[in-house]
């Protein structure tokens, strides 16, 4: 299948998946379940990664901009800008695409190869809509909250390393993360995360839904889903940054 054919198939798949759910009650049940499975279950990973990345950012910035030209609060301020502008949305979503993307692709792929999707179709259910909509909407709903958690934990990671090692004075760090604060950057990160959530969930669902064969192909689809999600996140990141920050 050429790239263009694949894109066409993806578009058809997404059109098929959009629609009024067969039963709202069932949809909401699945929607809440997906929020929990894709979002809440990812919070431990987000906390660990954010804490360490926040700490690391602070250490590296301190090492690289220790210069009389820069005010001492620059460490906190730069850490905040990196976290708000790039890490809390783009890098977090790249990390999450590995966990969430492979989860979605392998779950739907397994349903495909074990004929569970055929069973849904036989019953007269729009399987794409039934399976994909709750995942896409669930991830879009929970992603901004995960980004906020990431922002807070990363900034705390910087604070934590300052307290632990004294690399930067704690008060200076706190002053730095508050100085010259631009609220739009938070909104920028949240808006980007919505697009990334859509990319991760829809692309992974597509790769899982269109898998043919057995367990090997499901594994391959899962890998392809993560790779393609990552590429598309980076492409979207460039486009959105250009559109929203310039």
């Amino acid at each position, binding site marked *: 299948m050429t790239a263009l054919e694949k894109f066409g198939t993806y578009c058809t798949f997404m059109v098929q998946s959009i629609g009024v759910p067969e*039963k709202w009650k069932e949809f909401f049940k699945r929607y809440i379940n997906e929020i929990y499975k894709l979002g809440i279950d990812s919070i431990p990973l987000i906390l660990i990664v954010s804490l360490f990345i926040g700490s690391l950012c602070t250490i590296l910035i301190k090492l690289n901009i220790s210069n009389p030209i820069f005010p001492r609060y620059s460490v906190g301020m730069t850490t905040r800008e990196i976290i708000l502008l790039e890490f809390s949305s783009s890098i977090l979503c790249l990390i999450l695409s590995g966990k969430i993307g492979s989860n979605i692709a392998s779950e739907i792929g397994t349903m495909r190869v074990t004929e569970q999707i055929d069973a849904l179709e*036989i*019953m007269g259910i729009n399987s794409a809509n039934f399976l994909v909509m709750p995942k896409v909407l669930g991830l879009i709903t929970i992603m901004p909250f995960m980004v906020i958690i990431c922002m807070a934990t990363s900034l705390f990671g910087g604070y934590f390393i300052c307290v632990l090692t004294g690399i930067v004075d704690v008060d200076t760090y706190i002053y730095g993360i508050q100085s010259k604060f631009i609220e739009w950057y938070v909104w920028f990160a949240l808006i980007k995360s919505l697009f990334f959530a859509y990319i991760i969930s829809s692309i992974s669902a597509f790769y899982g839904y269109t898998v043919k064969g057995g367990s090997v192909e499901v594994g391959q689809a899962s890998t392809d889903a993560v790779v393609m999600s990552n590429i598309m996140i980076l492409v979207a990141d460039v486009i959105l940054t250009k559109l929203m920050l310039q």
Partner: protein
Amino acid sequence: MIEVKNIDKFFDNGTRQILFNVSAKFYDGKTNLIIGQSGSGKTVLVKNIVGLFKPDKGEILYDGRDITRMSAKQMKEIRKEIGMLFQGSALFDSETVIGNVMFPLRMFSHLSSEEQLERAHFCIDRVNLTGSEDKFPAELSGGMQKRAAIARAIALNPKYLFCDEPNSGLDPKTSIVIDDLLSDITHEYGITTIINTHDMNSVMGIGENIVFINKGHVGWIGNKDEIYNVDNDELNRFVYATDLFSDVRKYRLEHGYKRSIQ
């Protein structure tokens, strides 16, 4: 009754023909079997009949309603009258047995939660799975999975029941249990049951209307009593591939035994 008329089916952009002018009738209240060797086209035929594939030529009539000319909306209504048992059972992994059986009821019935539960318990009891309601598919044996899938398939009282290789992967004793269950349900509810199989025990046990597919063509149509006396080399090569059935046939022909083996 389901009737297929002059079905052709091609794959690979029309370069590979799998079904050639297939015509057959499948009757209400009877176990209709589609038999044939692996790769003969019987699964493709069943997938055409249930609407998972669309034939390139011909008609598929569900009690006179041609599904090949139906809109998606009309087809959706027909699907609510269909139950299907897949080769691998196709139970939803994330649901328990009771959840699986209740699934079509939740989606399509207007029953209250209590009524849905009552109906699901009835279906589970009908397939002798009482006590396994809260188990997940992975916790069930192959035979139990098949029975749970049958319970799910009959939950909405279907008019048409399709079974794709219901005995695949099962031991002979469990296969007979599944065959008997399908036969009983078919007669009890007057369902048009179509079973796609190459299990000769099933053919000899419950084959009330048998359609033999050979290389995409209808090779023979008859029933389990007639199959012993057929002068059809392709069918005989398929049916009597094992020594056991070959010996049975020889015995019956030598002794003029016309009654079916029960």
